[in-house]
């Protein structure tokens, strides 16, 4: 293998490029990215960058001088011919490869009623964050946030800190209900309310009001929430359309084995938000966490370089964090809202606590609130439980 093409120039693609070099690959590396920007950190976009406390250079990912990769930025992959081993860009350019890393990530999901017009935003990219920040700087003061997941919740907290009036909307009756389950979702609701957020939950948004610029959102119960800025955070869609004719299984993401090798393909791997990998402990999952881009990008690169059948499974325990108001939230493992949850340190009314999720008496995840000093210990607990459960379930 003398050449690797990496499609996707965010964290997973960048991490794969670094890993290829670290593990001795000295052939050519071409990285294709549809955004015009070199790789940057996405987590601060809804937090420090939107708040204006971190500027652009602060969020750039450091490119090692020794990487020796060719960056094709502002270029979009249009198709993959797996037999001819070639990626075709939308301007017709052809990129032959010995090995391929699919790292095209995901994009913001836009509801049916979504319309591109001034004052209406999703938040996924640097340009999205700049647009929202500029809208605030131009004087927007009343925001409606549609979707009370992590992005919506973080944007809500940041905009409140900037002095904006914020209404947080979700079709679910509590924020982050589908991720965290009811008891912790109630804690999240309390935090928003304590910071003066108007929460309109359990009601669907049906459309926008206003013509040339936005004036608000219309709810299913007929009410209208006035707003001069709307941020929609209703999940993401994996960017797989360019692989449509490749023969790859694309249901819920690019189907991969536990070592990030694309199933049914030769020397093609996938990593990051676009990849649905078999996890030795957690089954087949697409993981949207930032750190997954680091670890899967690395694992995918090592799989490309490994002898056939020699690739090691990627066994990282999922991890993400969120900063909202004065709380730092961390989740390790994969909680399900149907798991039982109990508080193991502190209490839900305290400024810091730790909760453990269990299924059939086995720990599945830990939720830490302002308890960073306990993160490593609970990661070890969740990892040990997952490993044991996987081995017990093995034939």
């Amino acid at each position: 293998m003398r050449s690797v093409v990496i499609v996707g120039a965010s964290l997973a693609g960048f991490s794969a490029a670094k890993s290829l070099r670290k593990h001795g690959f000295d052939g050519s590396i071409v990285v294709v990215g549809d955004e015009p920007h070199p790789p940057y950190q996405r987590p601060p976009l809804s937090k420090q960058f939107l708040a204006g406390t971190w500027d652009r250079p602060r969020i750039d990912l450091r490119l090692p001088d020794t990487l020796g990769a060719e960056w094709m930025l502002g270029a979009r992959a249009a198709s993959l011919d797996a037999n001819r081993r070639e990626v075709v860009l939308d301007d017709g350019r052809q990129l032959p490869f010995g090995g391929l890393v699919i790292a095209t990530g995901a994009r913001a999901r836009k509801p049916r009623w979504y319309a591109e017009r001034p004052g209406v935003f999703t938040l996924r990219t640097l340009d999205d964050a700049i647009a929202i920040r500029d809208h605030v700087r131009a004087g927007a003061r009343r925001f409606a946030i549609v979707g009370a997941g992590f992005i919506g919740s973080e944007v809500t907290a940041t905009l409140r800190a900037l002095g904006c009036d914020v209404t947080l909307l979700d079709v679910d009756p509590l924020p982050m209900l589908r991720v965290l389950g009811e008891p912790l979702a109630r804690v999240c609701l309390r935090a928003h309310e304590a910071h003066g957020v108007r929460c309109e939950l359990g009601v669907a948004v049906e459309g926008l009001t206003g013509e040339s610029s936005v004036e608000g959102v219309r709810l299913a119960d007929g009410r209208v929430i006035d707003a001069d800025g709307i941020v929609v955070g209703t999940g993401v869609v994996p960017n797989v359309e360019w692989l449509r004719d490749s023969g790859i299984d694309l249901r819920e993401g690019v189907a991969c084995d536990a070592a990030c090798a694309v199933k049914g393909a030769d020397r093609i791997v996938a990593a990051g938000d676009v990849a649905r990998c078999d996890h030795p402990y957690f089954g087949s999952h697409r993981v949207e966490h930032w750190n997954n881009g680091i670890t899967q990008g690395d694992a995918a690169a090592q799989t490309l370089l490994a002898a056939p059948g020699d690739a090691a499974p990627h066994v990282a325990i999922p991890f993400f964090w969120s900063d909202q108001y004065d709380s730092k939230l961390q989740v390790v493992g994969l909680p399900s809202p149907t798991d039982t949850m109990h508080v193991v340190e502190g209490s839900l009314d305290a400024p810091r606590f730790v909760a453990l999720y269990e299924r059939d008496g086995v720990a599945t995840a830990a939720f830490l609130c302002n308890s960073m000093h306990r993160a490593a210990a609970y990661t070890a607990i969740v990892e040990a439980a997952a490993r044991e459960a996987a081995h017990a379930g093995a034939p």
Partner: protein
Amino acid sequence: MKIVVDFDACMSNAQCVRAAPTVFEVREDGFLYILQEEPPESLRAAVEEAARLCPTQAITIED
């Protein structure tokens, strides 16, 4: 080997603590502490793993 942490970038996510617990510690105050600024060569792999896993790329290893 010398460890440099950009404490403005550090978010105390403690991924480094998992990778190299004798070098990094996040304490109850929520801040990261470096237990050994110049750890022995035997810890290089662990420290490199810590730097790699840091979600905010706050850890640099100097030679």
